[in-house]
């Protein structure tokens, strides 16, 4: 319950993922998983958000945009890399357009592994960041 003192708002940016992770991030909002229990609220604009969830490998084109989005967020800000692609590039590591992984582009606070990770594990990632905020 001590965690509930903070109420961070989350935003997601798809840095060229296959949609699998994005679906699981969205499933996190829906009735079965419902991240609002932890005081988190979904925001469409990263400018309003405290936590940025990043999915995908980070291609050359989206890396620039990701950097810009990160710079637009107000401090203190936290980033969670969701999925194998965001952590290491996954199956697309050898692709010619790979500019990641995400922690090379922007600082990352938590990593959630899986292809794609289950909504529960993404929630765990968010809760870990909540602990870090204390």
């Amino acid at each position, binding site marked *: 319950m001590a965690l509930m003192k903070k109420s961070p708002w989350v935003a*997601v*940016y*798809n*840095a*060229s*993922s*296959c*949609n*699998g*992770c*994005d*679906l*699981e991030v*969205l*499933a996190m909002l*829906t*009735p*079965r998983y419902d991240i609002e229990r932890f005081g988190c609220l979904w925001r*469409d*604009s*990263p400018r309003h958000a405290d936590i940025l969830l990043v999915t*995908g*490998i980070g*291609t050359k*084109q*989206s890396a620039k*945009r990701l950097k810009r*989005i990160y710079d637009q967020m107000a401090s203190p800000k936290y980033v969670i890399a969701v999925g194998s692609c965001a952590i290491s590039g*996954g*199956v*697309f590591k*050898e*692709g*010619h*357009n*790979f500019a990641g992984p995400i922690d090379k582009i922007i600082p990352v606070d938590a990593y959630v592994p899986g*292809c*794609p990770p*289950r909504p529960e594990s993404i929630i765990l990632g968010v809760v870990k960041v909540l602990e870090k905020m204390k």
Partner: protein
Amino acid sequence: MSDYLVPFGPQHPAIKEPISLRLKLSGSTVEGVDAQLGYIHRGVEKIFERENINNALYLAERICGICSYAHASAYTRAMESMMHIRAPPRVQYLRTMFAELERLHSHLLWAGFMCHEIGFETLFQLFWREREQILDVFERYTGNRVHHSYNKLGTVRYDIEDEDYIREQVHSILPTVKSLRSEIKGNGVVAARFKKVGPVTHKQAIEYCLVGPPARACGVKNDIRKLDPYEAYGKTKFKQPIYKSGDSYARTMVRLDEIFESVKIIDQCLRDMPATKVPKHSLKALPQGEGYGRVEAPRGENFHYYIVKDSKITRAKIRPPTLAVFPALETMMLGAHVGDVPVIVASIDPCIGCMERITVTKGRRTETLTEQEFRRKYCG
């Protein structure tokens, strides 16, 4: 003359995937659309070229997270046609059933999105709650919710054990979907936002070679399951929902009707499935030469083409459904109100991850090309 140039995306609340549209506006009417793509171009076709045929299956799935099984089945269909083998009957029924389960989850997901675009958050949540029932089936039989890795060349990984469980789960969504469908049908707000928004005529649909639900919404009968039956589709009976008006409303209704047809197919598969064993591994010959496979993905025709040499893929060509539908987006948007743009984009059910092409950046100039244009211009 256009008054404004409004950027739409790549990070935009209405589209979950990064595409960037530059809208030329005159007042609030769209006069021109310039799509800038390349944010999700991962070079999948190139990565295929080094892959062993067994590993490439897992790469094929990861082209897209929503129609993951459609890509896997197009891949297996291409490889099996190359080897001139057909999977045993039980495997065919199992594959058909999983393809239809995927259609259910994809359409429910999309229906939720469509309602989200017009601000109907409650319907979004309700559709996604029902979708979890289908994902439970996937998780129970394949071990994963999104990328199932269910197909193997010539066979499937797991057999199903209790058929009643699938029947129960699939039928449990029907009452809610029925009531939500009548809600969408009878609601004046939904009608005002969807009807006559982003229309395409029958003639334009044929000219643009539209596929899947957007084509069926204009009266074009192009369901690959009917035209070129694969797996067990030839032995099942189902209807192709056809609408005439070609607007966002018709596209919505086609997909909602397909949910009920998919449930019918799943019921028939469970009833007619022969009780034989699923072979552990039935790969008798290695594929060699070239082969193609096409399947009806939830979004339309999905086409894979491969050349294989010494059990390594040397060339892959993939035409996912969104690539076929995307060029028609401009026709749909011209003359539309700027507020309707998110609805029109969502109504074609875009899957940008599937369709990314090459973007060339030279100095400050950026151009998006197809592979042929790129070759002509830069490799000539």
